């Protein structure tokens, strides 16, 4: 009994605690935003792991799909529920924004899933390196298309989403963004877990291990690839929607290849084909990125004190992007299988399995 519901319980307590603290304003806005980005990053890394880990493909354009989701849900939300200089007055009464919001996010997800076809269809015939190049191309196509649509701000970006959040909070006074992030993060991990642990979804691993054998042993490989790519990109789209509403602003530049790489780092850090690894690494990675904000000034001061750098030069935050890729090199050298390899928490600590069931 306890085993059956322990995961629900832990989730309810964690979620409840975070949301209560947000409500009571115990947590600063900064801490809240870090927590929300952890959620977004969990969705991104688990969904990319589906393709790169479970299916054994190498997608490196995940941020492109995130971008589609971010734009579609932002535009849709603002068009429907907010007064805006692009769309004019709101189409619907902003009082409904709260109820419509999950569907707006899902619409972003559906749009991103459709954009996923850009990769899914070529994947019928193409594998490995060649497909990787197609994913990069897809990333560029998406970003450049949006940059070239002047009506929605082009490369300057698009905003107005904060108004929707305000309308939601006007209806029921709760910290809505943390709530949505929490719900969608849990749902995302749950759906992926269920998919890959079903016999149907194990077709994904069969494809990665021997595609020819999979097809001949009755796995409809094209169908599985389509579903997997669409699910993966759809979830990235939802992450994008959340990301856009957390920031209240989107621009195509934030979804470039750099962002895709960030997600790749999380997947490899956590371990290919390990969901718990991806969750863990998304948390660690987000915290690490933030930690650099504090560590780099300390290093800077120290370096000045011991006079190893010129007094006119400051080590800036840009150095994060030297240190993080460096970390990736070190990781690939010494632990290429990532934190968890392809195992789950329950495989590493079998005794844990007695206390939870996650399906």
């Amino acid at each position, binding site marked *: 009994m306890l085993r059956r519901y322990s995961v629900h319980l832990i989730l309810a307590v964690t979620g409840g605690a975070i949301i209560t603290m947000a409500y009571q304003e115990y947590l600063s806005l900064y801490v809240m935003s870090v927590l929300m980005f952890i959620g977004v990053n969990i969705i991104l890394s688990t969904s990319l792991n589906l393709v790169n880990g479970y299916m054994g493909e190498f997608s490196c354009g995940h941020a492109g799909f995130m971008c589609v989701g971010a734009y579609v849900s932002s535009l849709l939300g603002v068009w429907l529920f907010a007064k805006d200089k692009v769309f004019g007055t709101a189409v619907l009464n902003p009082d409904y924004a709260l109820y419509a919001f999950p569907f707006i996010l899902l619409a972003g997800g559906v749009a991103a899933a459709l954009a996923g076809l850009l990769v899914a269809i070529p994947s019928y015939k193409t594998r490995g390196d060649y497909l990787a190049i197609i994913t990069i191309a897809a990333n560029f196509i998406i970003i450049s298309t949006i940059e070239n649509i002047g009506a929605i701000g082009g490369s300057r970006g698009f905003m107005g989403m904060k108004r929707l959040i305000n309308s939601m909070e006007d209806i029921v006074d709760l910290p809505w963004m943390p709530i949505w992030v929490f719900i969608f993060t849990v749902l995302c991990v749950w759906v992926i877990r269920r998919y890959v642990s079903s016999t149907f979804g194990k077709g994904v691993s069969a494809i990665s291990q021997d595609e020819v054998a999979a097809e*001949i*042993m009755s796995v409809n490989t094209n169908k599985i690839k389509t579903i997997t790519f669409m699910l993966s990109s759809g979830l990235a789209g939802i992450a994008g929607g959340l990301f856009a509403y957390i920031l209240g602003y989107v621009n195509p530049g934030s979804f470039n290849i750099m962002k895709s790489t960030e997600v790749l780092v999380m997947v490899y850090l956590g371990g290919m084909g390990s969901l718990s690894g991806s969750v863990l690494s998304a948390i660690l990675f987000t915290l690490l990125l933030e930690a650099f904000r504090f560590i780099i000034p300390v290093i800077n001061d120290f370096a000045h004190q011991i006079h190893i750098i010129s007094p006119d030069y400051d080590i800036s935050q840009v150095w994060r992007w030297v240190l993080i890729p460096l970390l990736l090199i070190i990781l690939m050298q010494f632990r290429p299988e990532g934190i968890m390899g392809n195992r789950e928490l329950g495989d590493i600590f079998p005794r844990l399995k007695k206390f939870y069931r996650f399906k």
Partner: protein
Amino acid sequence: MQTQPKTNDAPVMEIRGLTQNFGGLKAVSDFSVKLGKNELSGLIGPNGAGKTTVFNLVSGFYQPSEGEILIGGVPTAGLKPHKVTSLGVGRTFQNIRLWNDMTVLDNICVAQHSQLNYGFFHSAIRSKHYLQREKEITEKAAELLNVFDLMKYADDFPKNLPYGTQRKLEIARALSSHPKLLLLDEPAAGLNSADAHDLIRLIRWIHETFDVTIWMIEHHMDVMMQLCTQIKVIDFGETIAEGSAEHVRNHPAVMTAYLGDENI
């Protein structure tokens, strides 16, 4: 939509005038055969004769340059391999192709993909139907493993099993969708003589126990002599002899084709 077999008494498999060209190479040329219910029949020929190519054509991995293949009366032209499999064809590979990072039990379950009867949404919401089907699939797989005396390896990975056991597992996997036709591509390849002997018994036992037609490729003439009623011999894609094992063995064309081949 799947076309139903035209008649119930159509042969399990029929091949008419099958030809396959790879560039300038004629790997299979004007090959015809008819296999009835519960037949156990063989296909032999020297290296590179085109035997595996015939199997690959039957399972839909290649589309034939000419000729047609009918499974239970249904033409397979244009069908993808998974569709052909769901018409009732199971097969093994000359070089074992198990899913090595998936447990033995999962290998058997996944090979039932054509009969799952549920899709992504059922798996995501874990509907009653889904849970029921998963239970049935796992039970069926466990039953098959039991029958093959492989249940003790259910949670192991195939790559950690002895070679002979992997061969056996691959045959079990081919049977997991209850095919009407089982294609075995050199099942005794790489086995020592004791294992090969077990394999002969296994195949004979499968033939008696399961309601299945078996068509096998094998280099070991003695294996074929013990098992098959009908044998076809091909060389450079051409059929050079056919008939009973005894007839084929003493056929002059076969002796020439195999001249110097120590396998005969």
